[in-house]
C-alpha cells in the first residue's frame, strides 16, 4: 500500500493538522505502509500532481485549508481544484481534511473515477487550548475533535474501505459525544463542535 499525505505548515490550523497528520504517518510506517510525505514547502501543486501521475498511490490524505471547489497546500496556494488535478485521483481513495471541500470538489473527484472520498461540507473547526499550543497532539481540547477526524486515516491505513472508515470515524464521534454528555463531564462546550464536524463529514463511494 502507498499513502500520499500533504501537511502544509504556516498558521495555527495547519500547525495542528501538521502534527496530527504526523500521527497517521507514524501509524502507516508501523504497519509497513509506504508513505510519500509532502510536508511544508513540498505541499505544492506541481509536486502533488507529479506524484499522483507517476506513483501507484492507493490513499491520498490532504490536510490544509479549503473551500467548496479547492484544497490548498503550503502558504494557502491551491494544490487541487475542480478541473485541475481531479482526474489524477482515478482509482484512489481520498480523505480531504479541509473546510467545505466535500460540497463540490469531492463530487467532482468521484466523477473522475476515485474509489472513495471523505471530506467536509462545512468549515472544519476545532478548539485550541492556548496553554497547550506547543504540544498540539497533547491538547486535551483539540484532541477529541482531531482524534475523531484522524480515525478516517487510521482506518484507511488498516485497509478498511471508505465506507468503513467513515463509520469508524462517526462511531468515534458518537463515543466522544456520549462522553462529554455525561453529567460528570467537564468541557461540555465541546459538544456543539463535535456534532458540527461529525454531521459535516461526508463519504462518497
Amino acid at each position: 500500500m502507498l499513502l500520499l499525505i500533504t501537511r502544509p505548515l504556516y498558521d495555527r490550523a495547519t500547525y495542528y493538522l501538521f502534527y496530527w497528520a504526523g500521527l497517521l504517518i507514524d501509524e502507516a510506517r508501523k504497519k509497513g505502509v509506504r508513505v510519500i510525505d509532502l510536508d511544508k514547502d513540498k505541499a505544492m501543486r506541481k509536486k502533488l500532481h507529479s506524484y499522483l501521475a507517476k506513483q501507484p498511490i492507493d490513499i491520498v490524505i490532504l490536510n490544509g485549508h479549503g473551500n467548496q471547489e479547492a484544497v490548498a497546500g503550503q502558504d494557502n496556494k491551491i494544490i487541487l481544484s475542480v478541473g485541475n488535478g481531479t482526474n489524477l485521483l482515478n482509482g484512489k481513495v481520498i480523505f480531504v481534511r479541509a473546510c467545505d471541500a466535500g460540497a463540490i470538489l469531492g463530487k467532482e473527484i468521484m466523477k473522475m473515477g476515485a474509489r472513495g472520498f471523505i471530506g467536509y461540507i462545512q468549515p472544519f473547526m476545532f478548539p485550541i487550548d492556548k496553554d497547550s499550543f506547543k504540544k498540539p497532539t497533547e491538547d486535551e481540547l483539540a484532541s477529541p475533535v482531531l482524534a475523531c477526524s484522524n480515525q478516517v486515516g487510521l482506518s484507511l491505513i488498516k485497509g478498511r474501505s471508505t465506507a468503513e472508515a467513515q463509520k469508524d470515524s462517526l462511531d468515534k464521534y458518537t463515543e466522544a459525544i456520549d462522553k462529554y454528555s455525561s453529567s460528570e463531564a467537564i468541557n461540555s462546550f465541546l459538544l456543539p463542535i463535535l456534532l458540527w464536524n461529525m454531521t459535516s463529514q461526508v463519504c462518497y463511494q
Partner: protein
Amino acid sequence: MEEKNNTQNHSEDIINLVIARLETIPPNVEMSVGNEGSFSIDELIEKVKKQDAIGKKMIEMQLAYLRSLGKLPTQDLQNAPANN
C-alpha cells in the same frame, strides 16, 4: 479560499442565547475556523453580535446542537444535517 456567506439574519433572542453559550467557554480556549484564522471567545462573541460570516457559523453550530438535544441515542445524530 472564501466561504459563502449565509445572508439570513437571526433575531436578538437567538444572538443572546448563542452569546450566553459562548460565555461558558473557558478563556484559555481559541477556536480554529478554517482559513479564517483562530479566534478568542471574546472575538467570536463580537462576530456573533455583528452576524458576520464566522459569527453566523457559530450561531448555526450552536443551534444545530440545541436542536439535536432530545434526539437520543446519539447514533441518530450521524444522519442529522449540519446546516439545519
